[in-house]
Structure formats: structure tokens, C-alpha cells
């Protein structure tokens, strides 16, 4: 296995001696999702972003359909990153499904983590009528999603890959994004979607002894408030913050609100840190 820095395109910024804060992107794009949020933390923290295996600038060869068929593999990657960078007292910020990746990692090796910040988390996307759980999707919805992703090959193939056009106002950004952003191999996208949307991590929540912050957007069709509340209520130590931001990606649509919610939480909880 190659060096994790290259393997998962690990980028660092901020204060070298600061407490490490690791930002993980969820289903979909890559570490660019955090580009408007991380600068807020640079002055005080050692800021680390990375691409999940199979996404963005991660080494394509490291991805394997069998291994990456469940979220546990991504949690193992996270633990490997923490291990290889020898990080202690980690603040982990996971967006979307990366929130559950953080939950799995912290349940396995809680000593490594000081805080988890879960942005738009859901422990299970499919409703579970037996227990009255509302995840927001019916099984038919998810089946449709998976079929859609499986059949999207031609649309995502190299020849017909979605090309992201330049933004006249920010040509540099455009060039950078055109190269990689959201250009995921369809097999990777489909496998990760299965791992994400078929997962049920409800039983893992009580096993996380690390203090958590749940950030919930309004009108989030991927992780509705019922899902966020469930996560909050089943974590042993958790705070819940409802944000004004709408949609599923507040890190892009409302980076200021997202960053201050995280920063406020960390400041308020400073006494609780080890």
C-alpha cells in the first residue's frame, strides 16, 4: 500500500503544531467541497483534507470494487490516515456519508478522536417502517438511484464526461475544477452509492464515546431533519445545531454559516478537550 498522502491526495494547511482537524467529503465530489470552509480554521488548527479512495485526486489504482463496497473500508482509510500522519486529538468533520465514516472510525478507535462534526448525517437513508424510522427514501427510490447510476456509464464515460465549463469570473478555479472535480469513475460512483444508501449504521451510533456536533440543514432532501435528529439522539454525547442553509451541501452554499457553527462549537467545548 502506497503512502497515504499520495494515495488519498492528502493536503495540509494551517498551523503545523495546531490541533488536527480533518475534513472529509461525502458522496459525490471531492475535497474541493471544503474549499470555502477550511480557510477559517487555518490560523488555529492543523487543517487536513483528503479525497476518499476512488474520488478526486486519489490514486485510481487504490480503488477496488470489492473492498470499497461498504463504508467500513472508507473508515479504515481514515484510520490509516490518522495513523500514518500520527494524529492525536483529531477533530473530524465529515459531510454527508463521511459523517458515518467518522462514526465507524471513532467507534473502532475512539482514543484518536477529540470531536466529530457531522454535517448532514444520516445513519440510514431508507425508511424503516418497522421501527418508525424516517430516513427520507423508500426502497424503490434507492433502487431507482442505483439503476440510474449503473446506467449512467455512457454519460460519464471518458468521451462524454461532463465537462465543467469555465466561469468567466474565476478562470483559475474553472481550470482546476475541470481537471478533476466531480469527474468520478461511474463504477466508483455506483459502488459508493450502494455503500452509502444501503447502509444502516444505527447500531454504531451508541458505540461512539467521542463528543459530536450534528449540523442539520433546512430542506435537505438527502438527509432530512428526522435523520439528523435520530443521529443526535442516539450518540452518547452530542449537540444539535439547525442551520438556516438549505439543501445538502452547506459547505458550498453557506460556507460562512457552516464554518462559524463548527468554530463556535469547538470554542464552547474547549474545556472538554483532553
Amino acid at each position, binding site marked *: 500500500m502506497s503512502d497515504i498522502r499520495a494515495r488519498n491526495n492528502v493536503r495540509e494547511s494551517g498551523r503545523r503544531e495546531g490541533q488536527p482537524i480533518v475534513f472529509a467529503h461525502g458522496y*459525490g*465530489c471531492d475535497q*474541493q*467541497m471544503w474549499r470555502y470552509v477550511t480557510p477559517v480554521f487555518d490560523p488555529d488548527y492543523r487543517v487536513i483534507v483528503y479525497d476518499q479512495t476512488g474520488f478526486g485526486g486519489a490514486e485510481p489504482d487504490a480503488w477496488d470494487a*470489492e*473492498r*470499497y*463496497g*461498504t463504508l*467500513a*473500508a472508507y473508515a*479504515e482509510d481514515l484510520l490509516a490516515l490518522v495513523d500514518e500522519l500520527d494524529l492525536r486529538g483529531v477533530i473530524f468533520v465529515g459531510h*454527508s456519508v463521511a459523517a458515518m465514516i467518522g462514526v465507524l472510525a471513532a*467507534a*473502532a*478507535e475512539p482514543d484518536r478522536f477529540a470531536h466529530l462534526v457531522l454535517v448532514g448525517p444520516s445513519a440510514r437513508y431508507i425508511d424503516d417502517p418497522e421501527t418508525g424510522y424516517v430516513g427520507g*427514501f*423508500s426502497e424503490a*427510490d*434507492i433502487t*431507482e*438511484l*442505483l*439503476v*440510474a*447510476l*449503473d*446506467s*449512467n*456509464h*455512457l*454519460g460519464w464515460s471518458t468521451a*462524454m464526461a*461532463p*465537462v*465543467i*465549463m*469555465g*466561469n*468567466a*469570473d474565476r478562470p483559475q*478555479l*474553472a481550470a482546476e*475544477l*475541470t481537471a478533476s*472535480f*466531480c469527474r*468520478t469513475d461511474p463504477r466508483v*460512483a455506483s459502488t459508493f452509492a450502494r455503500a452509502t*444508501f444501503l447502509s444502516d449504521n444505527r*447500531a*454504531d451510533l451508541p*458505540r461512539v464515546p467521542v463528543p459530536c456536533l450534528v449540523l442539520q440543514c433546512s430542506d435537505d*432532501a*438527502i438527509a432530512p431533519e428526522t435523520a439528523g435528529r435520530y443521529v443526535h439522539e442516539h450518540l452518547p454525547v452530542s449537540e444539535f445545531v439547525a442551520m438556516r442553509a438549505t*439543501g*445538502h*451541501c452547506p459547505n*458550498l*452554499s453557506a460556507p460562512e454559516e457552516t464554518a462559524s457553527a463548527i468554530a463556535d462549537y469547538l470554542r464552547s467545548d474547549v474545556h472538554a478537550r483532553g
Partner: protein
Amino acid sequence: MPAAEPTAGPDPEWDTAPCALLRLDAAGRVVAANAHFFAQTGHEPQDVHGRLLWRDLLSAGSRVVYQTQLAPVLELAGELREVLIELRMPDGGRLPVLINATRIRDAEGNVTGTRVALMSIQDRRAYENELRKARDEAERARAADLHARQRLELLTQGSTALASSTDVGVALDRLAAALASGFADWSIVFAPPGEDTDTVSWSAAHIDPRRRAHVERLAALLPHEADAPSALRRALDEGEATLLSRVSAQHLSAATGSAQVLASYAALGVGSVLVVPIVARGLDVAAIIAARTPTRVPFDADDLADLRDLAGRAGIVIDNLRRHAREHSNSVALQQALLTTAPEAPGLQIATRYLPATNGNEVGGDWYDTFLQLDRTPVFVIGDVMGHDIHAAAGMGQLRGVLRTVGYLESGTPAEILTRADAAAHGLSVAVLATALVARVETGSDGTATLCWSNAGHPPPVLVSRTGARLLDAPPDRPLGLMRRLHRPRHDHRVAIAPGDTLLLYTDGLVERTDEELDVGLARLLDSVAGTADADLDAFCDLVLKEHNPTLGIRDDVALLAVRVG
């Protein structure tokens, strides 16, 4: 594009465009749609205007794709091009379209809305589906091929690991390692208490050597679990094999009451598990736990069958190794029992040594013996029965008895003793082949001592005197046990010995090494004993063994008999 803004009433260019066009406001609500859009989707204007495109007009799948992938791109890059999504039609049907979208900004750069073009690609889907089907089939074939190869690898690796093992512990270690090198992510092989131990022993392995300690921790905990894991108990007690193809966190908590065991499971990751007994001669001698983490394709019934196959082979190997070990310790005990204490012989000091073979697997038929004949002449025997097993040890016992009896009763010379013993052994059907050397110390009427010996194919004795050491290398006669067809007389040889002389009789294990000629070993022996004539006899024996035994390349056992005059 002049006059393309659709906000101010009907526009022929807008409505006759050969694709569906939408305009969204900053929040993503539809503020305008062209005639093509309505014609293609079947929607009525009132079902579209004011609705959120992503939430109200897309299929569930496309909703997720839009939210997780397309919205971020639009947000960051300002444009989307040629992405396949599905529109939901009023009748519940789906319309596949390629979406292109551009953000609209005002003079200050604030986003005011989005222009969207949708191109139906329904007709292309059939073609795409054909391609996809072909690809899926190719992948299935490849996966099946890979599976077959992995299976073969497991059996090959496992069998090799077993075949090269020399004791049960090593066999279990290697088996565990072979299993956790791809077939499983981690494995434990348990051996229940055996005849000579009352503790459960185990071997643990992890595909990532750094995580082996976790497996070892679990292995140490499991046997103390009173009721669980029941699959392991069933394997050990009833010889039952179990396949657990999908193990959930709930299963694991239900399976054990121990927080430590649960923590080990969590640390290792348990996705699917095989528990298979190792049976030898109808007895359950061990059990294998092989596990894959949740990230791997779970074990299936074929994997279970493969592991049972391998466990069957392991059972045979372990049984053989155990029997061999038992036999070895029996042989050593038998041999030690036969090597008696030397009798008192007036005017002579006698010292003996016996070292079993160093690799622990072979038992020699080496022996030494001393006794007094009827006329009280002291006789010394050293011998080596061919073979390295319990038969050799037993044959040695019989031959030694025959030589002793004949030597005692007949009072003959060494050559006579050997000749008669050979005949007696043949007549009594003691079917062993052996080399031996018989010597006795004859005292003349004038008090001088003579050493008389006869050699049946044995390495030459060494005589150490104050003037040096030499081999008594008169040509040896044939070994014992080759009766009849080689009926030639045996010879006695004599040499005068003086007080202080030391006779060293030994077996070939002392001088033979796998990597050199016998002459080299003999020369080294002579070198090492020269100048030791004054050493205490026990110290002399220790020195000889230290110089020649037993660490380097010596596989045989060694018997030593030293006699000093005066």
C-alpha cells in the same frame, strides 16, 4: 443571444428551439419553460411553474445525483454540461435527458438564476443498455474466473504450509497464516487440550501483520467464553461447520456477553465468518475460524466447502505429526532405559554419554554397554542400529541383549562374541542391521594390559596416550545382520595399553556431518583429543562432545564410551 430572455411573454425562438429549455430563479424554482419541454414531458404549466427543478421534477435517483454532484458543480464552476438525469413525467414514467445548465449573474456577480437546456436521449438508451449488458456479462465471467483461481490458491497454499511442517504447532501457525493471506482477512486455528496438555492452544494471523495482535487478543479471550461463540463450540464439540455470511453488529452483541470480545470484533471487523472443525480419525482435534471484514465479498457455500476440504487435509497432517511426536518420545524413553550404568571394573575408569538427535524428529538406535564376562574380563560395546524410529530403538534393545548374553556366557574374544551374537540374532529373528565394536581389556600374567577389539563396520575407536592420539583403524569386518551370504571370519586386533591411556568408543553421529567427508570429522576428532590424556575422564567426555556436537549440521544421535587404564 438577443431576444432570448423568456420572461416577457411568448417568444418564437424560445418555443421553437429543438430542445427543452427552462429558466430557474436563484433558489432553483422554475420561472419559465418552453413549449418543447411541455410537449416532451407531458407536464402542464401549472405543475411546473414555481416548482423546484431538483425536488419536484426529477426522479428520486436523479434528485440524489443532482444534490450530491450537480449542485456542487453548478455552485463552484457556474456551469454543467452533458450530464444524464431523469425527469419524472406526470404518469410516473421517466424521461432520460442530458442536462446543460449555466448560472446567470447580475452586474455585481450575484447569482440571479440558471438557464437549463434538456436534450432527450430516450432513443440512445437502448443502445447504451446493450453495451452495458455486454460489459456486465464480461465482468461476471471475470469474477467467476477470479473466484476459481482464489480457490485453487487457497488449497495450494494451505497444503504446502501443512506439508512443510514438522510439528503440530508449526502446522497450525502456517495454516492460520495461509488462510489469512487473501482467502480470509484474519483467522484463528484452535487446538483443544491434547493428551499432554490441558490448555487450549491457538495460532492467529491477520492479512495485515500490524493487526495480528488484535487477532491474538481475541484468540486468547474466546476459549474462556462460557456459552459463546456457539459456532466455535459446535465445531470443537460436535464437528459441525458453520457459515455466517452476513454478520451484523447486532449479531455480534447477541453472540457474546463480553465487552472485551465485542471490542476485539469491532477492531478487527467481522463481515462474514467460516467456522470449520479439523477432524482426525473421527476425533475433533482443532477448529478453524476464518473471517472476512465487512469490506469484502462475504464467504459463500463454495468457500465453506473449500475450507472443509483443506481442514480434512490438515486433520491427516496433524494426526501424523502427533503420532510421530508420541512415538519419538516413546523411543527416547525406551532408549534411555536401555543405557545402563557401567559396572565397576577393577583398574579402569569408565564414563559414558548419550545425546539424542538434535532436530527432535529422529530417534537413533545408538547404544553403549559395559559388562564383565564370567572370568571378570571387562567388555565394552558401542553400536548403532540402522534406522531412526521406534523399530530401531527396539531392535537395538534386542541386539544389545544378545551381545550381552553371548559375551557374558561364552567368555570369547570380541570377534567370537560378534560372530556368535550375529548367529544368535539371526536364529532368533532379530532382523536388524547394525554396526558395532566390541573391545575388552585383557590383563597378562605380568600385569601388562592389552586392548583387544573387533569391529563390525563401526567407525574406528580412538586411543589417547601421553604421546598423542591415534585411530585404531584396522580394516573393519562386515556389520551385524548380513548373515549367511557373507560368511567370512571376523578378526580380533590387539594393542598394548599403558596406565593413563584412554580408549574412546563413539557412534558416527559424533564425527559425521552432512556437509563434509568422514575423514575430515575423524581428523578433527583426533586433533581435539590430542593433549587431553591428563584431563579428568568426565571432563574429557564433555570436551569431546563440546568439540563435535551437537549444534552444527549434526542430525544423528551420539553415544560415547570412554575407558581409562589405571
